[in-house]
């Protein structure tokens, strides 16, 4: 069975070679037949890789320990869902997922891009094909998931227990959808550079792909952070770990791209910058892959350290990024620049947004790679931690966040800043009231927290005020407002949602870092301690048995002024196959707070326990979900569904299907 999959990968490589050469040549010669090969090859590649992926999944689900990849990463006692998720829980398998998603996006362009100019589609798909050639050959040469094991093993080695978790089962696919999704932006940029033409319709074609990738990456990062929060048992949700940064950098660049593409679409300007961002976003995605896969940076996440692989990915990186940047240096200066605009305008605000996001991305980049660079020039080996990022990244974000509601209200071309500020007086009042309330409750020590809360309410209220103005809420009869709401472009709703999501996220981050209460102590069964207004009684520890682990389960009864609130169980699991212990934090969550308890080691006649009270922490991820929802709404905007008005039979047919 697995041999068929292996064969399908080889066929996909051949298909990718065809896809990356003939259509490119055809586009240069304006040869319709050669260009038409591109969509066909892209769909064929998708089918082949889907088949190959399915055979690998089949091998994992049926415990085929004659396949090396299954033997190394699975075990017969592992629950079914983790046998499935375990397919991409390792280096080789995750690459299969990577190329499968790449083919998915390629097929997407082939199917949905029918109303794009033929030369453009051919070139985009040829570039996608080139990326596929790089990664498929990498897979076959250095990281083959389809190898047999001879003689076959009786049982497998198991999967790292901390990876056996529902959140982490979904984390890599979402992250890869984001990373790889940006390859379409890259291919679009490369095709535009080859054609030497960038115009508003290009930005409109680009937008749905960037949006889709951005939504997936947003959710992927949020899932990863959430997983770190509940699984690692430290109660933290972001560690500025190199691998986290590797996923955060493409997100920052992609967010900038999303905003600059709007300027290009509406005002036909910022062409070269948008192209550069499209290239850099994917470059950072590739760099992310490189950092995780090569072991260049030591990190808790790095799970494949093999120099041969590292060199291959580096070569890929140099060809893909170096090549595209050279092409950029050659072609971009010839692009026509667009109309000028006043600094105080929607364009100006979006440039401000891009500038800060780019610089912020640069600081993360510097913080992540500085240790390596320093060592390369003979300096000491260091690690850059949260203090660096707190001092560089956070201050850059503050002006950006303050500008969010203002920029959303400014008019194109020439805006009226005093007018906008006057219209935002409610938001300003809300922010001031929040700050005053925080100071009144928490005293001078709460100044920083008060500032964070004020910022959050400024963004949320400011975004809502802007939305209310659009539908003339309370200024005209409600029925009339409702009509205006229905007539509003989806993109407007999308922006408000995304910005409100951002505000909620700031709220969650501020509250959970400023208001966290933490107690680490040894508790004997029956003992009760107070935690942030709750009484926590340690009921004791019992032994439980899971499918592939044994665990000590600590139970805690939580009461508030004597009234029962909840019972929380926290486990220390010992995975018998992998011989590793993990902690499962017990978490009772509601919209306002998390109670987060971790059972530690036995200590005398008691246990070391860590009890955390994390206020509003859920909103960090809730905010990310709202942001992604905004992206989703934007994806359904009419102008993306309908595309450029073009009276051909085919585009009418597409509309009908919608």
């Amino acid at each position, binding site marked *: 069975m697995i041999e068929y999959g292996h064969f399908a990968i080889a066929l996909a490589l051949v298909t990718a070679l065809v896809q990356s050469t003939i259509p490119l040549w055809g586009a240069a010669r304006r040869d319709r037949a050669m260009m038409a090969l591109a969509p066909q090859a892209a769909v064929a590649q998708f089918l082949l890789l889907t088949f190959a992926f399915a055979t690998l999944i089949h091998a994992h689900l049926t415990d085929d320990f004659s396949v090396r990849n299954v033997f190394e990463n699975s075990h017969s006692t592992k629950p079914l869902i983790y046998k499935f998720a375990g397919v991409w829980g390792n280096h080789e398998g995750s690459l299969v997922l990577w190329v499968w998603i790449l083919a998915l996006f390629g097929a997407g362009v082939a199917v949905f891009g029918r109303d794009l100019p033929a030369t453009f589609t051919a070139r985009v798909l040829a570039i996608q094909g080139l990326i596929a050639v790089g990664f498929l050959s990498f897979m076959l040469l250095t990281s083959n998931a389809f190898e047999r094991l001879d003689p076959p093993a009786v049982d497998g080695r198991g999967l790292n227990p901390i990876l056996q978790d529902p959140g982490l089962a979904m984390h890599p696919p979402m992250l890869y959808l984001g990373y790889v999704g940006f390859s379409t932006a890259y291919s679009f940029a490369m095709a535009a550079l080859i054609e030497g033409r960038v115009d508003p319709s290009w930005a409109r074609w680009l937008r749905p792909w960037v949006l889709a990738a951005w939504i997936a990456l947003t959710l992927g990062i949020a899932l990863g952070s959430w997983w770190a929060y509940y699984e690692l048992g430290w109660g933290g949700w972001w560690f500025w770990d190199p691998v986290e940064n590797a996923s955060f950098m493409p997100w920052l660049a992609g967010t900038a791209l999303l905003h600059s593409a709007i300027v290009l679409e509406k005002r036909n300007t910022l062409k070269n910058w948008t192209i*550069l961002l499209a290239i850099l976003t994917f470059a950072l995605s590739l760099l992310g892959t490189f950092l995780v896969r090569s072991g260049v940076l030591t990190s808790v996440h790095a799970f494949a350290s093999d120099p041969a692989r*590292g060199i291959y990915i580096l070569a890929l990186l140099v060809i893909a990024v170096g090549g595209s940047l050279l092409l950029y240096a050659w072609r971009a200066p010839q692009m026509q620049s667009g109309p000028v605009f006043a600094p105080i305008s929607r364009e100006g605000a979006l440039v401000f947004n891009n500038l800060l996001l780019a610089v912020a991305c640069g600081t993360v980049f510097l913080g992540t790679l500085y240790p390596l660079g320093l060592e390369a020039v003979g300096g000491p080996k260091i690690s850059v*931690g949260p203090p660096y990022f707190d001092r560089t990244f956070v201050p850059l974000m503050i002006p950006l966040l303050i500008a969010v509601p203002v920029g959303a209200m400014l008019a194109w071309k020439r805006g009226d800043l005093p007018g906008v500020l006057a219209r935002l007086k409610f938001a300003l009042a809300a922010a001031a009231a929040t700050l005053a309330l925080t100071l009144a409750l928490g005293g001078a020590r709460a100044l920083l927290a008060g500032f964070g809360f004020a910022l959050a309410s400024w963004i949320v209220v400011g975004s809502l005020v802007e939305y209310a103005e659009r539908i003339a809420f309370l200024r005209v009869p409600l029925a009339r407002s409702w009509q205006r709401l229905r007539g509003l472009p989806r993109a407007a709703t999308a922006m408000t949602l995304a910005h409100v999501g951002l505000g909620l996220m700031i709220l969650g981050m501020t509250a959970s870092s400023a208001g966290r209460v933490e107690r680490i102590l040894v508790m004997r069964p029956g003992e009760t301690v107070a935690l942030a207004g709750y009484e926590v009684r340690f009921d004791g520890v019992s032994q439980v048995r899971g499918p592939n682990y044994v665990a000590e389960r600590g139970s805690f009864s939580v009461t508030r002024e004597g009234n029962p609130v909840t019972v929380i169980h926290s486990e220390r699991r010992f995975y018998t196959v992998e011989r590793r212990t993990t902690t499962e934090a017990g978490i009772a969550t509601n919209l306002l707070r998390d109670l987060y308890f971790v059972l530690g080691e036995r200590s005398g006649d008691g246990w070391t326990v860590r009890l955390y009270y994390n206020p509003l922490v859920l909103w960090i991820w809730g905010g990310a979900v709202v942001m992604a929802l905004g992206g989703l709404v934007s994806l359904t905007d009419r102008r993306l569904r309908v595309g450029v008005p073009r009276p051909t039979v085919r585009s009418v047919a597409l509309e009908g299907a919608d």
Partner: protein
Amino acid sequence: MAAEREELQSHEQRRGAVWLYLLPVAIFAVVALALAWGLSRDASVLPSALLDKPVPEFELPPIPGRDNHGFSRQDLGGRPMLVNVWASWCVPCRAEHPLVTRLAREGFPVHGINYKDRPEDARAWLAELGDPYTYIGSDRDGRVAIEWGVYGVPETFVVDARGVIVFKQVGQLTPRVIEEKILPLLRELERR
């Protein structure tokens, strides 16, 4: 004439801008070189940044409620000493604590850098496990630890009588490291 001059000027400007367009690829070349270099070395070997170098200048406040001394550069030197970086939230620190205590009982001063910890947690930890440290500095934001080149907790440094770092253990102390490396080194330093 005027139009011609304008054209010339814009041409000049564009020529200047061409270098700007080469900037991304130039930056990328530097990054790629650094990455290539990074691949050529073994990332798992952690050389001690400050090995055979004097201890950096630093001054840390005490853990409130323990004593009023704190811990600074002035406390080091005169005779060989140990500096142990620990935190109450760090599980390996708890595990190595008996070994730290043992080193202190051997008669060598052991100082502590309490890394990113809350005073109340640190005090509770010391009360529970015992306090073998002569001086402890509270490094709440972890900046002094960065100057010491600390990767994570726990870490233990051996500082000689001149105030030079002569040995560093990254991660948990083990009885073997103590028997084979740290104690022989300390005794030899004492004899010098």
